[in-house]
């Protein structure tokens, strides 16, 4: 099964590390993975996004023209990507920053107040991890323990950071 996910948001929201996180976790589980950051002349301080493809087989294209999952961490990302998601796909919305109504009825929508939860946890910068937790649970692409293991290897021995991120992740995970 080939599953493609797009993570999108502002430059500072940590969407690239969410993608890397997923890729890392999938690799640990022995799957085929591609991770494709997008950037361009237009992204000076604007939105950023990345695409992760996970599969048991070889991956033909790292690009996702109709992804299975989209994580929209802010309003512009929602606007840009909501029509690309494939029927039956899941759209994750950071409801702390996004108010918009979604018109499509053929997709599943998960609203996560990522920023407010992160603030409540006392680490406002880990809103992305809150979302990552919810995404891990719902998408079921990789196990949450792989995500945590990936996190640990990415953050090497920054114990404090690992702890904070793990907490945020589990808060999101337990939300659904």
């Amino acid at each position, binding site marked *: 099964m080939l599953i493609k996910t797009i993570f999108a948001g502002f430059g500072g929201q940590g969407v690239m590390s969410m993608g890397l996180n997923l890729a890392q976790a999938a690799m640990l589980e022995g799957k085929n993975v591609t991770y494709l950051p997008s950037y361009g*002349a*237009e992204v*000076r*301080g*604007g939105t950023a996004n990345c695409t992760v493809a996970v599969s048991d087989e070889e991956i033909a294209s790292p690009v996702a023209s109709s992804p299975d999952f989209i994580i929209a961490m802010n309003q512009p990302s929602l606007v840009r990507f909501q029509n690309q998601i494939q029927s039956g796909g899941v759209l994750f919305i950071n409801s702390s920053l996004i108010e918009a109504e979604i018109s499509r009825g053929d997709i599943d929508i998960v609203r996560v107040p990522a920023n407010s939860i992160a603030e409540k946890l006392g680490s406002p910068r880990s809103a992305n991890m809150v979302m990552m937790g919810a995404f891990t649970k719902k998408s079921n692409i990789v196990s949450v323990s792989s995500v945590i293991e990936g996190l640990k290897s990415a953050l090497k021995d920054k114990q404090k950071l690992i702890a904070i991120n793990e907490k945020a992740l589990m808060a999101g995970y337990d939300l659904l």
Partner: protein
Amino acid sequence: MRKVYTRPRLLKRVPFHYCPGCGHSVVHRVMTELIDEMNLGDRIIGIPPPGCSVFAYHYFDVDMAESAHGRGAAVATGIKRAFPEAIVFTYQGDGDLAAIGTAETIHAANRGERITAIFINNAVYGMTGGQMAPTTLSDQVTTTTPYGRDTKIEGYPIRMSEIVALIRGAVYIERTAVNSPANIRKTKKAIRKAFQAQIDDLGFSLVEILSPCPTNWRMTPLESWQWIDKVMTKEFPLGVIKDITGKNDAD
């Protein structure tokens, strides 16, 4: 009440793609004001570079054309020679003008081409992700000097304006900055003098503008504006470097 400050007429009504706090857009604004004030909108042709300002033509409401990296001075030369009535400026980054475009810059100056180079020195390659520029300061960390620029290996920051000033065909050269109201005003005045030198058919003019790049300097916008005063001007002192236009400063 009357409106005392509004968007320049020649600045198109589109949001800039630059990062918050970036100096490029400040220069764009100053230039479009000036082009209007000097009544050059009808006959000016601008050559923006590959670089963060590659889309400058989206903002300037004047004739403009893309150029190959570093070749602005050659392109402008071709324009001016073929169409001397035009007022021609290049808009170039430090990578563009002082690295790959070194020869074109120096020789256009040497021929005394009646063109004006607007030279944005932000001490990095902004567009391509913050690599070392020829003007990167000693010890400055960039993506290609991850341990800081080591002058023994990578050389010293190059002072292009001082080099060009040595060249006889260059008639007006000034270094300014866009990091304070006063410096922004001086920048405008410098560009005015540079354009005037061209209008008066005197020779090559160049305005080097120290310009903040908060993104690649990894600073907040304000820090980056302050860093110019605190650090950058030590290496790149502001002021008129050469003026043989014979015009005295009336104001």
